[in-house]
């Protein structure tokens, strides 16, 4: 277990193992479901100009939206609010029979996968040794290593 999460070194290169590569690609797919990339533009709004600004710092962490009227929120709405993960969990607990959300997912294709260069989008015939991304030519590999490869490790 411990072995699989450690980065393996091959020569002077760090090489990610299968589990890490999968985690990275899953993360990339999850990013496609994001509603917004940037933060709420109204989050730090202060209506009264005289009020001092406390959040002027360089702190760029995602914060809970302030100014959200917690007390005003209806009890009913709190009960309603469930994430999809919670809904799926509940569905499993209820034991909803066979044709359900989980069984409806289409299986994998029986055709071979195609690979595209992570940089330019053309056919990617080579694989980056470190992270497993595809690329098509030396130029693209250089760009890839400079910008993306291992830059945001999961």
């Amino acid at each position: 277990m411990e072995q699989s999460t450690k980065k393996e070194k091959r020569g002077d290169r760090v090489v990610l193992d299968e589990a890490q590569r999968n985690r990275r690609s899953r993360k990339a797919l999850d990013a496609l479901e994001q509603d917004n990339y940037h933060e709420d533009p109204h989050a730090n709004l202060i209506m009264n100009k005289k009020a001092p600004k406390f959040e002027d710092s360089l702190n760029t962490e995602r914060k809970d939206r302030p100014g959200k009227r917690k007390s005003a929120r209806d009890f009913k709405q709190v009960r309603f609010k469930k994430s999809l993960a919670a809904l799926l969990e509940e569905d499993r607990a209820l034991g909803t029979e066979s044709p359900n959300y989980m069984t409806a997912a289409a299986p994998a294709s029986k055709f071979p996968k195609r690979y595209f260069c992570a940089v330019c989008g053309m056919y990617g015939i080579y694989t980056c040794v470190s992270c497993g991304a595809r690329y098509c030519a030396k130029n693209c590999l250089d760009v890839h290593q400079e910008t993306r490869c291992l830059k945001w490790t999961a």
Partner: protein
Amino acid sequence: MFVLDNGASTLKAGFATDAQPKVIPNCITKAKSETRRRFIGDQLEDCKDMSSLYYILCHEKGYLVNWEVQKQVWDYVFSKDCFNVDFDSTGIIMTEPYFNFCSIQENITEIFFEDYGAQSLSIMNPSSLVAYKYLIDNPKKLCCAVLDSGYSFSHVVPYVKKKRVKDNIRRINIGGKALTNYLKDALSYRQLNVMDETYVVNQVKEDVCYVSLDFHREMEMAALGNSRENTIWRDYVLPDYTSIKRGYVRPPEQTTGKATSAEQIIRMNAERFQTPELLFNPSDIGIEQMGISEAMMHSVNALPKEVQSHMYSNIVLLGGNAMFPNFKERLVQDLRMLIPEFYDINVTCENPINAAWEGGKALARCKEDLDDKAITKQLYEEQGIAYCVDFYNLL
């Protein structure tokens, strides 16, 4: 009757007597330029500057999770400012996603009967409404297969003798949202950072993306880069919301490939067809699922032999992704390669965005059919919520 196709991206709403539904964004948006207010639904039209719009959506992967936002949007839609729906005299037909969760159905039922006081409520899958209308318009047909490719996901839903075959519904976890985000990623990495510009990139997607009919040849063409022989690339002028209110494609013969000082351009090359291609090959970005054409075959193959040919000759398209140029042609082309040649393929695609609403409108016109599918307020009060949910699941 009021018909509400409650999509994850836009809701299509209107009275059954209206000619056309109103397409309203099903979200609350915040703009950088307007700090004093939030825009609910189509109030967004008041906003002059659409750059860096911030979306608060109420659906997660197609299922309703953010009720606070959804209620505000509904309140607005039914209010005097929008439709002025009087629930004391009207019932409502609305749509829900496939395999909707029990607790969501309970909440919807409760909200419409208790909060709004609707006279009757009918909750159906969008494809059921489309299939209903298709089988009424073509009375000789017995079966049809609906391909619903929307914002959150794509589904194949077969209907045999007006009945939904639940076991053969297939879902592919890719929809318009993923496509827009994919395009945003690709453009931001290769050219210009547009990560914050979901609204603009969505317009880019709608304006210049198309489905390729010969993927390999077009890849070769795109590989030619900026040369004149490459007929794929297009220069897209981005809006700046001062002089350019909406982005547009600059015709290839007029462009120099360079932006003038007052504008920003994006050159769309392979992205034009690679984006919608994900619907047909989700594995291209590592989603281990078959594409929509293959899923269609997979779903139909699991049906009895006798109905299979009827399925392929009665395919109906639904959902915004069907608006991509060549979408229908590509589906026919793919299916032709996958299925035996003695099966006829016939695909119908009429205004795929409004199709479900039109189906609801058709249903509202036929009182007998509507009575079979709706729960009246009285029935709700007598039988309670659990009965309603079972009723909707059996439709």
